[in-house]
């Protein structure tokens, strides 16, 4: 039974940053992931990371942009911390060997990004996430004597003691199917988002909401779950992301009639309005018949000088060529809004602490809430690093003052039994079928535009799928790399998360940020300037409660771009 001070679940940017911070604070650390750390989905973050680092920029300006971007649902104390600490974090990364883009004079270069009042996005071409992830991984390797890595282990549940404290997790070794209890004084969830609840999505296959559901199942409240970001530029069909960096570099959006339609929706910021605004504009154009027949509009990157595109947007040049058969330097590419990010997650404070003692959360799995109703582009990498580090530091400090803990192995046996039952089922629907039905339905009913009827229907479908999932069958009954078992467990997580998304969206009877209700098209600060918290309620739909939004400097105003 491995014992550590701090156990970190997930090895993307938030998890690795937490591990480094906890190790530096003197804790013994385990970091665990269902994939190899450099395959984590932080990889896919393309555009960059925001920091007010230029002398003529200020963290207050960054914070205000973030608050406005969040449609005033973000907690301003947390946003202030994130924006204030951003410059040092970027410098730290630079020192660790991240090859941020340099100008001809050798200075750090920035690019413009959506919803930002200054060009403050630091970047590495359009592979920023990958470049950061690999450098953090190098740092993790540097501390290999203090940080134990458990790669390709799958968490089946969080472990608790009799008082309800989180004391680690139960995990299955994907390589051979063995179950193990990992005890830890502090546990940090850093397992990412839940984009796979939607189909298509920009998210990788591993983004199945595991951590969100695991925390929910042991009683941690979730917050802002209704806030799902639809990214304005994804490919039709497979949902592959075209970075916002393209618009940051100067690309324009056109409808099928050749009209640069953002003039109507955001006359000042145009294509660089915040993502919810641009996605809604595109969807309106498509719904009103001004899109292309395949339900898309056009992103014209030919406006950007070809040389610059080949240097700064090299990955999407490849994506255009490989996945759409388009040379983006010579012709427009068809795009549409697609599921990209969940602003909500496990409710956590500014140090990553959740309401369960001993359990922390950081990155996309968490809701601090710095993104509120809508996340600004290039704030997610920042969120993972700032709150990853803070969680790591606080988790280590908590562990330092604690006596040794005990955890019961009974929980392992329970989960072993559950998996054995799962493997022995027969006659039910296939896991992959249920997963497909869920994703397609969510993308239809819980998308850019929502209403009561559609959401009610979505809830009924999710409840039915939950029943079906209890009897769903898998085909692989082996122990070595049994991806079927993992798929079935992931489906359970996705259904819990999907239900919370739908219930949150039903509950919020207004339009704010990413949540647009056609039956309640206005923002209503009198009634809804508050977070919706959802807690597990036995097998029933989640219990709804509310918590206040923290406002420090910026009172809500009308939001225009």
């Amino acid at each position: 039974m491995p014992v550590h001070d701090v156990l970190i679940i997930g090895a993307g940017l938030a998890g690795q940053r937490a591990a480094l911070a906890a190790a530096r604070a003197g804790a013994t650390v385990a970091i665990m992931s269902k994939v190899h750390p450099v395959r984590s989905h932080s990889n896919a973050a393309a555009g960059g990371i925001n920091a007010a680092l230029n002398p003529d920029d200020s963290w207050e300006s960054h914070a205000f942009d973030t608050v406005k971007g969040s449609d005033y649902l973000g907690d301003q104390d947390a946003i202030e911390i994130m924006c204030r600490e951003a410059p040092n974090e970027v410098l730290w990364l630079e020192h660790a060997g991240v090859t941020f883009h340099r100008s001809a004079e050798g200075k750090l270069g920035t690019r413009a990004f959506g919803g930002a009042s200054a060009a403050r996005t630091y970047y590495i071409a359009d592979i920023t996430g990958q470049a950061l992830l690999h450098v953090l991984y190098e740092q993790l390797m540097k501390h290999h004597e203090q940080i134990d890595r458990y790669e390709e282990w799958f968490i089946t549940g969080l472990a608790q003691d009799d008082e309800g404290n989180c004391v680690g997790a139960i995990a299955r070794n994907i390589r051979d199917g063995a179950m193990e209890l990992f005890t830890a004084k502090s546990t940090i969830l850093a397992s990412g988002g839940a984009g796979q609840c939607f189909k298509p999505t920009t998210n990788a296959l591993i983004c199945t909401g595991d951590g969100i559901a695991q925390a929910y199942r042991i009683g941690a409240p979730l917050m802002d779950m209704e806030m799902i970001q639809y990214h304005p530029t994804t490919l039709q069909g497979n949902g592959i992301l075209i970075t916002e960096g393209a618009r940051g570099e100067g690309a324009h959006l056109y409808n099928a009639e050749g009209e640069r339609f953002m003039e109507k929706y955001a006359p000042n910021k145009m294509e660089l309005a915040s993502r919810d605004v641009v996605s809604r504009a595109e969807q309106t154009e498509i719904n009103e018949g001004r899109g292309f027949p395949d339900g898309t509009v056009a992103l014209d990157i030919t406006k950007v000088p070809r040389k610059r595109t080949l240097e700064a947007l090299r990955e999407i040049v490849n994506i255009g060529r490989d996945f759409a058969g388009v040379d983006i330097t010579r012709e427009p590419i068809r795009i549409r809004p697609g599921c990209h990010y969940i602003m909500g997650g496990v409710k956590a404070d500014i140090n990553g602490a959740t309401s369960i003692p001993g359990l922390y959360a950081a990155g996309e799995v968490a809701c601090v809430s710095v993104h509120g109703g809508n996340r600004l582009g290039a704030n997610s990498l920042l969120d993972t690093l700032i709150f990853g580090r803070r969680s790591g530091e606080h988790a280590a400090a908590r562990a330092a003052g604690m006596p040794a803990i005990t955890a019961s192995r009974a929980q392992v046996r329970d989960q072993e039994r559950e998996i054995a039952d799962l493997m022995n089922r027969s006659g039910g629907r296939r896991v992959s079928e249920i997963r497909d039905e869920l994703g397609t339905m969510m993308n239809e009913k819980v998308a850019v535009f929502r209403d009561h009827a559609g959401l009610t229907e979505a809830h009924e479908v999710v409840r039915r799928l939950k029943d079906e999932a209890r009897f769903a069958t898998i085909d692989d009954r082996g122990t070595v790399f049994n991806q079927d078992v993992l798929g079935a467990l992931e489906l359970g997580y996705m259904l819990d998360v999907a239900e919370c998304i739908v219930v949150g969206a039903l509950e919020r009877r207004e339009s704010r940020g990413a949540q647009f209700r056609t039956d309640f098209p206005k923002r209503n600060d009198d009634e809804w300037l508050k977070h919706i918290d959802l807690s597990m309620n036995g097998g029933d739909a989640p219990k709804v409660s509310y918590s206040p939004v923290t406002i420090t400097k910026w009172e809500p105003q009308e939001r225009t771009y």
Partner: protein
Amino acid sequence: MKLTLKMWRQSGPDAPGGFQTYVVDGVTDEMSFLELLDVLNEQLVGEGEEPVAFDSDCREGICGSCGVMIDGQAHGPQRGTATCQLHMRLYKDGDTIVVEPFRSAGFPVIKDLMVDRSAFDRIIEAGGFITAPTGSAPDANLIAVPKMDSDRAMDAAACIGCGACVAACPNGAGQLFTAAKLAHLNLLPQGQPERQRRTIGMVEEMENYFGSCTNHRECSAACPKEISIDFIAMLNRDYRKARR
């Protein structure tokens, strides 16, 4: 279109492996190679057979998870792409495709098409990092980095660690991966203090797992990020300097 797949099946690390032949129908031009494997797996599951295990995650060429030998070529015949970026429009009805895991003594097979690439981690562990000064960081703009160096470091940092270079090399050499990781750090000002130690550590660790480079250049041809073998020249130069 209808394709015949000669697929490597191996139930575990120590189990004997062998080729099985499967016919997959209804393959379309738009499918990626991984979607072809998905279709095959659906078919196998329908017939009560165990699906083929393979690595995949982002499916857009950035995570480095996927990677198989397709007709003897790492990531298939198309240049500059990972397996997930290879599309079936390259094939025609009636084609036969041989699919195997990456082959190298340094990458033992785990199951079917999945291999253990943790030897790469050992190489990084042996020095592939910067020991950044802690405490107050001077402004990154105080030390200007020449754009050419920064761009070259960035070209090296594009490595996604997929292992195609090793699989493509007749010697199973790990030079291109190691060279990319080394060059990324050795080209930057912050990488200078440990440059020699890093180079010796990583190169000698690499030799524990992988073969020797004899300039076949297959690595660069197979690399989905088209990393240049110039970086191998740099590795050799740095290593000789460090060992002098």
